[in-house]
């Protein structure tokens, strides 16, 4: 039988029982609409959740390096710059910002207040959403080595409750010296992101802080993965870069220790090598946040999957039922067609075509109904309305599969009828 004949025959048969055909189509419409709506709603809700979790710094990877044996400030600066570049080149990593932290204090009349100083580069600003200077500016490239400061919102409020901080000089007691910092900006209040309290810091140029405190401190790097899904992969890539780098540094240090560290540094290097089994670096991701995120996506997917499966199953059973009834009703027709030369596969295809027409019609209508209800849902739920191409294809493809799957048994049964028996059927 030609494809055109199959389609014509299927449509004619369905037209003969319009109500019945409409009800079978409705079963599929409901199934597919449920799938499409759920996919769309979950996509919307997931997008919203993703944005929220991303705000929590899920993409952030914290790298601590402990250069126990590196002595000179110049060596520390070189290491920092080199390592930053190498880490930034790692796969799945979009941004690396070196930071250094130091504690200081400032005297307010008779009292003294402790301060957390964070040495950062200008890129620090790009690690967080909606983190920008409310007044003045953030640290620029040209500020390297300059004694300037940008205040977190809480610090600004505490130190300058009445005045505009920008342009003021803040004298900080730091590493046994009194250092005057000129305030050039105040950041917007951003609160806590992950484990970072952005509002409590005094931000200064990294090179300035390294110059003031010397190089004994470990250095921290904050890296950002390209997206929430690749955090673990980015962390692994970073570990790889660190391992390679430190193997090279260690090898070189062992070959010509004095060239690398100087006399005293060499002793310290070997002492560290003997006494410390600890890794010279650590890489930390926000596991809890990642797990929460992945868990919610899993749950959503599971809900989606069950709804899809159940509703399509119900629709499919409806199709099978209708097709079985149809085969019995048309036993004589099958006999007639066989008598005039229909092969088994012609009969089978005829009934499959009917099931397929029902399911595709239901699939397309269901797609429309599903999108409509997803759109309404997004209005009520206040999440973004997300239309995806692939769920649409999946839904229509799935309904076709349901048609073929559940139509197959009745169709094969029809095709196996004995022509003479079928002709005698009353």
């Amino acid at each position, binding site marked *: *039988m*030609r494809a*055109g004949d199959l389609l014509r025959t299927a449509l*004619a048969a369905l037209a003969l029982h319009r109500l019945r055909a409409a009800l079978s189509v409705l079963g599929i419409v409901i199934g597919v609409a449920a799938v499409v709506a759920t996919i769309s709603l979950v996509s919307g809700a997931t997008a919203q959740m993703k944005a929220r979790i991303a705000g929590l710094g899920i993409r952030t990877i914290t790298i601590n390096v402990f250069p126990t044996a590196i002595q000179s400030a110049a060596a520390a600066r070189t290491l920092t710059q080199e390592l930053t570049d190498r880490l930034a080149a790692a796969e799945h990593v979009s941004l690396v910002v070196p930071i250094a932290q130091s504690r200081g204090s400032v005297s307010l009349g008779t009292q003294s207040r402790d301060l957390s100083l964070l040495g950062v580069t200008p890129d620090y600003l790009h690690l967080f959403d909606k983190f920008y200077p409310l007044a003045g500016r953030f640290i620029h490239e040209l500020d390297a080595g300059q004694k300037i400061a940008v205040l977190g919102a809480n610090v600004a409020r505490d130190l300058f409750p009445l005045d505009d901080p920008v342009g003021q000089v803040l004298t900080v007691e730091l590493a046994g010296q009194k250092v005057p910092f000129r305030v050039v900006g105040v950041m917007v209040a951003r609160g806590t992101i992950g484990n970072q309290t952005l509002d409590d810091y005094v931000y200064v140029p990294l090179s300035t802080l390294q110059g003031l405190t010397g190089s004994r401190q470990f250095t921290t790097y904050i890296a950002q993965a390209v997206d929430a899904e690749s955090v673990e992969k980015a962390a692994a890539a970073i570990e790889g870069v660190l391992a390679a780098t430190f193997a090279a540094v260690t090898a070189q240090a062992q070959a010509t220790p004095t060239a690398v560290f100087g006399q005293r540094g060499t002793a310290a290097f070997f002492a560290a090598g003997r006494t410390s089994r600890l890794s010279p670096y650590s890489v930390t991701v926000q596991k809890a946040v990642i797990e929460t995120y992945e868990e919610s996506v899993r749950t959503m997917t599971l809900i989606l999957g069950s709804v899809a499966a159940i509703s399509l199953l119900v629709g499919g059973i409806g199709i099978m039922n209708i097709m079985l009834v149809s085969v019995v009703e048309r036993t004589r027709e099958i006999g*007639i067609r066989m*008598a005039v*030369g*229909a092969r*088994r596969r012609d009969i089978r295809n005829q009934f499959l075509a009917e099931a397929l027409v029902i399911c595709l019609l239901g699939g397309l209508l269901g797609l429309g109904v599903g999108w409509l209800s997803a759109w309404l849902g997004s209005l009520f739920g206040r999440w973004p309305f997300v239309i995806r191409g692939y769920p649409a294809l999946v839904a229509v493809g799935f309904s076709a599969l349901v048609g073929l799957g559940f139509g197959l048994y009745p169709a094969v049964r029809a095709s196996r009828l004995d022509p003479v028996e079928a002709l005698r059927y009353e």
Partner: protein
Amino acid sequence: MNPLVELRKVVKDYPMGATSFRALRGVDLAVGEGEFLAITGPSGSGKSTLLHLMGALHRPTQGQVLFEGQDLAELSVDELARLRNAKIGFVFQQFHLLARLTAWENVALPMVYARVHPAARRERALAALARVGLSAFAHHRPNQLSGGQQQRVAIARALVNNPKLLLADEPTGNLDTRTGQEIVELFVSLHGEGRTVVIVSHEPEIAARAERIVILRDGLVQEERRARG
């Protein structure tokens, strides 16, 4: 005359629960090319069974059915379907038309399975309807036609793929005597055009229009005789 269909020691059992019923008990019969044969006999004697075997709708339990010398046992189910489609035309007592199709669409049905191009079907169907004198009713549905007209549509359908063998099982059984006579005359004239015709009937005056009569009784050929002089 070369035999078009030949039955050799054909036995046909129908399963009846645990046992089976033997409807044909060893029939030898040959139908020559261009012959007009009537099969007659009492109800339940196995006439329809015999016709179904000749028409490749059934396979024998024992014995052989040969069509143009080809043993049908060697053909697959699909090959039997193709044989029915191309070389055999059936006409049934109950007409067996599809109610939702018009006359010409019913006639076109065998062409659907012969994969005749849709554009060519209509013309051929109308020609077949013209042959049986029903040109004016091409767009009528079966329920808008009399019994005799419905049987003519069924004959047109049997003719449309230009088969070698025309098989008719009690084609006048549901018709009044006069209409039945007309249908029989149609078969006589189709035979006159060179077609092989086998007609089953328990009415002697219809069987008498054939060239040869085979009388069945209890699944065996009881008697064969010449008719029409």
